[in-house]
């Protein structure tokens, strides 16, 4: 026993679990024989361990297994079951962005904001940064009309919600999933005429530099990409101040979403993301130090995947320890990054 470690608390904790090797156990036994403080501590630790074990846990809710089965059945029917969520999120977000933009344009067109060419209401600075062609507008007019009272932001949020509690019978035909399960579908092809059809002659005679209702929008607006998406360019000072220069860094829009991506990646490679082994309490705001660990055999794949995600400072080769490789990296987010 290390003489400086008079009360080997860690060993005592392992001792009460009976998980010490013979040599360590003999040392602890010998120490306990002489140390009343540690005897008392082991007794208390054992007491606590028993109390934790016997703490009341709410029972499994009735029907939960059925709800899980129902979700699995729904999963197997409709959607690609093995696609990671971030791959699904991209088209969903794109569709949601398009829908939101379309609704905005439809409302503006309906209000007559841009009626007529060269309308002085249109500031010259708002030119086609992101033009939406007429079919896209017409395709979204009807939903916009129907949902005029709803905040448009609802369309931007993919539904990822717990299912209802209702459990259908086993042999029921595959029903449409309850609304809370549904993900937004991409916009349907245009089926209606535009709200404000414009005479063809008018649009043809229009000078090229003017703005038309069919080619309207949008003041330099960044499409709301997935929350984990890397920020396009380095934000300089903010990032550099938060991350250890020796360490890999990944700048994301949302730390938790970025961590979720890393966690799923790590798990896919048979490893894990550890957010506990590093001093989160001392992390600066907007930074999350984490460690990704995977089996050594998949270390190179991990590094390659991280590079493809846009993680900066990924080492050339993994460092192996106990058959695993680990990479320390810091997720950072700039204060002005979109999505915050």
């Amino acid at each position: 026993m290390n003489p400086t470690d008079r009360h080997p608390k860690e060993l005592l904790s392992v001792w009460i679990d009976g998980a010490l090797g013979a040599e360590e156990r003999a040392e602890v036994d010998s120490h306990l024989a002489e140390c009343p403080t540690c005897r008392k501590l082991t007794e208390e630790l054992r007491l606590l361990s028993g109390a934790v074990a016997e703490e009341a846990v709410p029972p499994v809710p009735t029907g939960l297994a059925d709800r899980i089965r129902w979700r699995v059945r729904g999963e197997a029917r409709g959607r690609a079951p093995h696609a990671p969520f971030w791959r699904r999120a991209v088209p969903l977000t794109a569709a949601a962005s398009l829908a939101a933009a379309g609704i905005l344009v439809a409302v503006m067109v309906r209000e007559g904001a841009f009626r007529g060419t060269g309308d002085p209401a249109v500031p010259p600075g708002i030119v086609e940064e992101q033009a939406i062609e007429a079919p896209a507008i017409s395709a979204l007019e009807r939903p916009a009309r129907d949902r005029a009272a709803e905040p448009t932001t609802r369309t931007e949020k993919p539904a990822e919600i717990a299912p209802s509690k209702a459990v259908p019978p086993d042999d029921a035909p595959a029903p449409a999933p309850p609304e809370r399960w549904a993900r937004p579908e991409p916009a349907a092809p245009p089926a209606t005429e535009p709200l404000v059809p414009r005479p063809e002659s008018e649009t043809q005679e229009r000078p090229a530099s003017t703005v038309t209702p069919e080619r309207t929008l949008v003041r330099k607006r960044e499409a709301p990409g997935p929350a984990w998406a890397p920020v396009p360019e380095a934000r300089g000072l903010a990032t550099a101040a938060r991350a250890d220069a020796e360490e890999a860094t990944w700048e994301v829009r949302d730390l938790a979403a970025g961590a979720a991506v890393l966690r799923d990646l790590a798990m896919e490679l048979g490893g894990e993301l550890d957010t506990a082994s590093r001093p989160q309490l001392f992390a600066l705001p907007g930074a999350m130090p984490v460690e990704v660990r995977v089996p050594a055999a998949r270390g190179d794949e991990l590094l390659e995947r991280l590079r493809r995600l846009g993680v900066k400072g990924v080492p050339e080769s993994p460092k192996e320890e106990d058959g695993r490789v680990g990479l320390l990296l810091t997720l950072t987010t700039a204060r002005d990054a979109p999505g915050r």
Partner: protein
Amino acid sequence: MGLRRGMLEAMSDAPVTPEASEHEWVERARSGDRDAFDRLVRAHLPRVWKVVWRVLRHEADTEDVVQETFLAAWRSLANFRGEAAFSTWLHRIAVSRALNHLDRAGERLRRASDPLDAVPDGEAGRTAPAELLAHPDPTPLRALEARERMRRLARCLELLPAPWRAVLALRDGEGMAYEEIASVLGVALGTVRSRLARSRIALKRCVEGESP
């Protein structure tokens, strides 16, 4: 309805799966057999539920995370190589999802203003270990009245960092071996030992009235 429900009920009523037959069910589920996967769900749901609740300590959140866990397991079955036991793999997903759930900023905010599940008084008194109730040489912990001790324990568990709650849930709640905990959490054995010791010491201090 009849035949399929009959099969499911028969599977549900089957005794706890021995390793060999579980392997068979896993293989069938991997090949896309949803009934086989349902069997696995029913076999593992109680333990997964307990572990996730012990980490989250919130029933509705636990239900969400448990559902996501099994859904993720279904989606990822192709990646399950059998290097660890199915239950270990499943617990890895469950703990990971539970911790991830707590990582979300919005969730942290909500939990800060929304009280977690409280242990009902009756439950607390009833579940106090018998040995706590009478002892000739009371320690500070023993000196506390049992119901008060369990109430403090519940409160202190809420205050512990979630990864510490996870290790306590796996060891003290589920009685897992250190090696299995290391595999579930993806950390080295030494990390399990030290994290568990720190968790227990912090919990003891908290229950005795010190800050954790």
